[in-house]
């Protein structure tokens, strides 16, 4: 049972960047800097929440920080058409170094910062639901927000013109441009939406799920999201499936440790699962085709 809550709790952290990343990928811009954006967002969430003793301000700062990072990415990768991997990874290094420096110069500490002045994003208690208490009660409001966003994204993805333009920008931007829709604008939109989502997930990490900042606390979650995005290849359902599967395998790994499995082995689970899924996917589709040399 607890594995369910555990999965939900941490899933948010990769689901939001995976959703955002899915859209930027649809426009042809794989965003490698999710890890870095998440980290700066986490830092500035603590900053805003601490300074103003308000989680709203924390969220606000987190989103702004993530926007700035994503705008740099957009400037380089959309306008200058620079290599997404170089810029993405450079931004990840920047985020790590910058937050360590800021931690030292703003809070005067090294490594981590926590304080009672940090206001946490509230949890949602729905009253007594009987046997459903464990299923619905006491999740962070961000969890609910994420659920709403997933539904909203699904709708936008397949039922609006914006969803259509996203894919058009990725598949043939010249065609979109010649149809009078600026592909650059569409790309910017997707990147900015992604920035907001990653900002929220960063804030959730530091002031939603936890109430502290620790250097490098994103701990590879941005990368997992990127992997899920590549795996999903712009497809909504597959992206979500990959993300959820990953979150579940992760929680399962943690759970199995308690039964005495070696942690270094259980931690391989999610990765092995994705490898297996990839190979399955590949073998299956190549059987379907079964032609071409």
């Amino acid at each position, binding site marked *: 049972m607890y594995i369910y809550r555990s999965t939900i709790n941490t899933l948010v952290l990769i689901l939001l960047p995976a959703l955002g990343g899915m859209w930027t990928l649809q426009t042809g811009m794989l965003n490698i800097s999710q890890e870095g954006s998440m980290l700066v967002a986490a830092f500035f969430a603590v900053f805003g929440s601490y300074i103003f003793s308000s989680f709203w301000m924390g969220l606000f700062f987190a989103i702004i920080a993530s926007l700035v990072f994503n705008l740099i990415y957009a400037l380089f990768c959309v306008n200058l058409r620079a290599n997404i991997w170089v810029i993405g990874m450079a931004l990840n290094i920047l985020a790590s170094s910058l937050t360590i420096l800021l931690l030292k110069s703003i809070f005067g500490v090294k490594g981590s910062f926590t304080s009672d002045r940090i206001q946490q994003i509230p949890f949602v208690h729905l009253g007594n639901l009987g046997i459903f208490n464990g299923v619905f009660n006491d999740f962070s409001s961000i969890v609910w927000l994420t659920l709403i966003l997933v539904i909203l994204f699904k*709708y936008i993805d397949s*039922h*609006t*013109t914006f*969803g*259509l*333009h996203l*894919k*058009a920008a990725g*598949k*043939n931007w*010249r*065609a*979109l*441009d*010649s*149809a*009078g*829709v*600026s592909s650059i604008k569409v790309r910017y939109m997707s990147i900015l939406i992604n920035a907001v989502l990653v900002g929220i997930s960063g804030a959730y990490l530091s002031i939603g799920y936890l109430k502290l900042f620790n250097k490098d606390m994103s701990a590879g979650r941005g990368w997992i999201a990127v992997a899920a995005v590549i795996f999903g290849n712009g497809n909504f359902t597959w992206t979500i499936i990959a993300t959820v599967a990953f979150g579940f395998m992760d929680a399962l790994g943690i759970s199995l440790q308690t039964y005495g499995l070696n942690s270094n082995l259980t931690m391989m689970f999610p990765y092995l699962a994705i490898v297996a899924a990839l190979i399955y996917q590949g073998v299956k589709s190549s059987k379907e*085709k*079964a*032609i*071409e*040399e």
Partner: protein
Amino acid sequence: MSEIIRFNSVTKKFGKVVAVNSVDLSIKSGEIHSVIGENGAGKTTLMHLLYGMYKPDSGKIFVRAKEVNFSSPKDAIKDEIGMVHQNFMLIDDFTVYENVVLGAEPHHFISFDREKAKRTVAKLAKEYKMEIDVNEIVGSLSVGLQQKVEILKLLYRNASILIFDEPTAVLTPQESETLFNTLRKFKAFGKTVIFISHKLKEVKEISDRVSVMRNGKLLDTFKNENLSEIDLAKMIAGREIQNPAAVSSKKGETILKINDLTIIGDKGIPAVKGLSLDVSRGEIVGIAGVVGNGQSELEEALVGMRKIANGKIEFKGVDIGKMSVRKRREFGIGYIPEDRIRTGLAPIASVLENVIMGHQNEREFSARLDFMKRKRARYFANQLVNEYRIVCKSVDEQVGTLSGGNMQKVVIAREFAHDVDLLIVSQPTRGVDVGGIEFIHKKILDMKKSGKAVLLISSDLDEILLLSDRIVVMYEGQIVHSTSTKDADLQKIGLAMLGMRS
């Protein structure tokens, strides 16, 4: 008829190249106006200026007597200008209706009203008598149908000035005829059409007036009825153009024997079914047929780019069915592919890198320890550029920036430089100007004269009739008609191409 478009000494330069050189041109409302000229003359650039894709360096453009200053196609679309590009601007994975309405979709609150989109597009198609299923995925359509989608896009946006940049280059004669009917319908509806083509017969057939460009300059505009095809050709090339005289040569031994060949196509169903064909030295065999009847699969299978499911390919007496591409090339097969951008070239690579491909294993360029003789390669590339008069700044220029005709010359130069025994030539003059066509045709005939075998695949029946000794017609993966050129019956060939037996 009143004037609808006016170019006033419009100039556009790309670096040192003056693509469009102080052009004055007036287009009248409701006419079909052709623009012709050799490769690289500046036709496409001129139209891109009108469509807002480039801004003129100097000069003015007027639309409906109003000076315009488009900064993107969006502005041009607002002014009811539409363009069908030389390379289609379609999204292959989208459906027909999605492609058509893209950028101007009907809404239902915030959602995309797909039903309304489908209805509108279907209605539009019916209005212009275009038979097309709006729910099809565009990538799976034939080129002719894809072009209809492009045209629907313009109509959907109410374009009244329609630009067509070499629309017939990739069409079958039948499809071209359908297109012309549509163009005439446009004219009847009072729309203005600008038509660019290298096929002078078509220009004669469809135009009201013709403008000729050379070297970026507009030579003059003529009434169509005042000119003959030969006059047009002369003006384009600046000299007399002659159809190459038929070359006779001795037919030698049979070099290629295709026996009961079956090939599975991309869709998983047989694209070529039990096809048999022989080609001999000193002979040109022409394969006629509507595009998409298995020709692409056949040519790819012959060079080893595609597996064969059944049957036998014998070349110089050896079964080559399982040989690698490289082995086949070394064994004496040359290939000019139908799609030069996708297969025949690496557009981002330089001219040098492009002409070396396929030659890289030859002694001349490759030494021991995998060493590649780049100096030699450069010399070779320069030689080809001179011999084939490829217009480029240097052999280090990206092939993708050359004009279409010159790109084709790069492919031809490279393949002809091989000492081959069999040359498979597919759509060799697609998008090439009259001068270029003359040159390429002459080269192909030279091949034959020197005792090589040539398998010519073309959707241009005139080309086939002109060059081939023997003609076979492919329909749905099979040879349905076969004749020597001198006994050819056009009627029969035409019917065979459509799958009808006479």
